[in-house]
């Protein structure tokens, strides 16, 4: 009995590890390689989760279709925000995604006839693939691992092609890139869309795995958490650092759970740690770059 519990516990953490990994791969690539700061990944993740939840509840759509559509919904939202703000300066994207995040959260809260407002959406059926039902953590784990691999393949494929080098150049030297007839803004917009697509796919997995979605799960703290996990990665190696970040995050958050803090205090402590991580990594990089 004890052993079964332990397997479920580790499988549960691993499922979240791989769901988060998908968001973080995309976010790491857009932050480090394309040099754009998105504070809206919590919202893109939430849009994915709500899209998948609504599609399965109302239209009985399968896991695969719902997940693809969830990714596309997040992609559309991000391209809209990106199109409006990236033409000007990268700074504007950060504030536009922040405002978008808040508006999305309020919409999820208040559009009760569709989203069920503050009660959240319950009763999302478990994922069904090839006639088998992924109800347990252990049976959902393969799905999340495969989708995480899919994310790794997409990001590494892009980063190793000429397109990937153009994306790197769009932050390092946009003017040089323009002299080669390439448009930095279009490249950045593309990276943002892919990154949001992955976040939407991850959100859909979240909905199918937890079977319940609530507006509070997709706020600024979620965005910041993803950002902090993605901070350790670098422009040229966007994936490897993410695994370090994910490992650190899950170990810390499980240790905090063992210490038995009240739920709010634990939440605050995690956010303080994530903020410190972002701040220290930024300062460390700066020190390092000067030498």
């Amino acid at each position, binding site marked *: 009995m004890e052993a079964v519990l332990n397997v479920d516990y580790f499988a549960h953490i691993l499922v979240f590890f791989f769901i988060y990994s998908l968001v973080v791969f995309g976010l790491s690539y857009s932050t480090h390689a394309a040099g754009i700061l998105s*504070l809206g990944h919590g919202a893109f993740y939430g849009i994915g989760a709500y899209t998948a939840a609504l599609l399965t509840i109302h239209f009985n759509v399968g896991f695969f279709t719902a997940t693809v559509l969830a990714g596309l919904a997040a992609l559309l939202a991000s391209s809209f925000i990106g199109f409006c703000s990236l033409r*000007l300066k990268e700074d504007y994207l950060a504030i536009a995604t922040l405002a978008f995040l808040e*508006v999305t959260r*309020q919409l999820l809260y208040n559009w009760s006839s569709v989203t069920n407002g503050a009660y959240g959406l319950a009763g999302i059926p478990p994922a069904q693939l090839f006639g088998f039902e992924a109800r347990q953590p252990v049976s959902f784990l393969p799905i999340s691992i495969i989708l995480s691999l899919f994310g790794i393949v997409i990001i590494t494929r892009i980063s190793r092609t000429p397109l990937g080098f153009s994306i790197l150049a769009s932050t390092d030297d946009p003017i040089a890139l323009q002299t080669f007839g390439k448009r930095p803004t279009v490249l950045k917009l593309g990276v943002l869309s892919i990154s949001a697509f992955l976040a939407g796919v991850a959100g859909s997995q979240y909905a199918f795995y937890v079977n319940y979605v609530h507006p509070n799960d997709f706020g600024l703290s979620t965005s910041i958490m993803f950002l902090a996990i993605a901070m350790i990665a670098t422009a040229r190696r966007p994936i490897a650092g993410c695994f370090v970040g994910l490992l650190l995050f899950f170990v810390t958050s499980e240790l905090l759970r063992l210490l038995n803090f009240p739920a709010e205090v634990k939440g*605050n402590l995690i*956010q*303080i740690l994530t903020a410190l991580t972002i701040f220290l990594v930024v*300062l460390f990089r*700066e020190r390092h770059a000067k030498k």
Partner: protein
Amino acid sequence: MRGQFDLLIQICINGLAAGAMYSLVAVGYSLVYGVLRFINFAHAASIAIGAYAFLTLTTYLGIPIVLAFLLASSLAGLFGWTLEKVAYHPLRRSSSLTPLLSGIAIAILIENVLALAFGPAPYRLSRSSESDAIQLLGRYSILRVHLYMLASAGIAAMLLLIMLRYTSLGRRIRATAENLELAQVRGIDTDNTISLVFVIGSFLAGVAGILIAYETQVTPQIGFLPSIKGFIAALVGGLGNVGGTVIAGLLLGFFENVLVWQLPTVYKDSIAFVVLIGFLLFKPGGLFPNKWKRF
């Protein structure tokens, strides 16, 4: 018919008071952007620090309101100085992404430290006369705190414009905004000037925080929405244009409240977002002509 018109006037008064708060917050964004060309993402923390400092000073230490008001906003100003020294000064020469990251990290840090120190439950400021309504022309009424909001935004804008135009500090700020290297060549201590710009912006955000605390409750997230709307006002006014920013803040508050009169209340915060998207798409330079953009 008369009743509807009276209601509209009343809504305008409330809207302008809300707008005055956006102006106070927006000026900080505009000044910092004018000098350093980036968005100070930790501005929300200044608002929260002003509100919590005022709460502590009045409720727990029993310091008279006027003194507490000055102390709390000065503390927010001091926070601005520290923020610049700790989070922005070391990153002065790096890419535009890094100050955004360190700013948002500081904002999250302060929000959660406040939540740990004061607990997650909201506080109410002890209501004295600030929530009284004053009668205007017999028919309309204005809350005393709304009157303070309008007055403080007006006084702040006036002093700031005079300071920027006619004092030596103002000339230093304008020179630094115009061309940082040239200002240094002329012997201006630009580091000191930039610190002072942060102090001014955060002081005003602290004032806004205290007044917002009177109207709503004090929570660690108190600065979040006002800071987003303040930025939108700064964008509409043209970043770096202090006078335009103040007018834009008033306009934003005004339109929000007038539109919400006809729309469901839940859309109130979405109006500012629509304004942001509209201006980013069609008028990214702001409402006013470019030649006004110099302080």
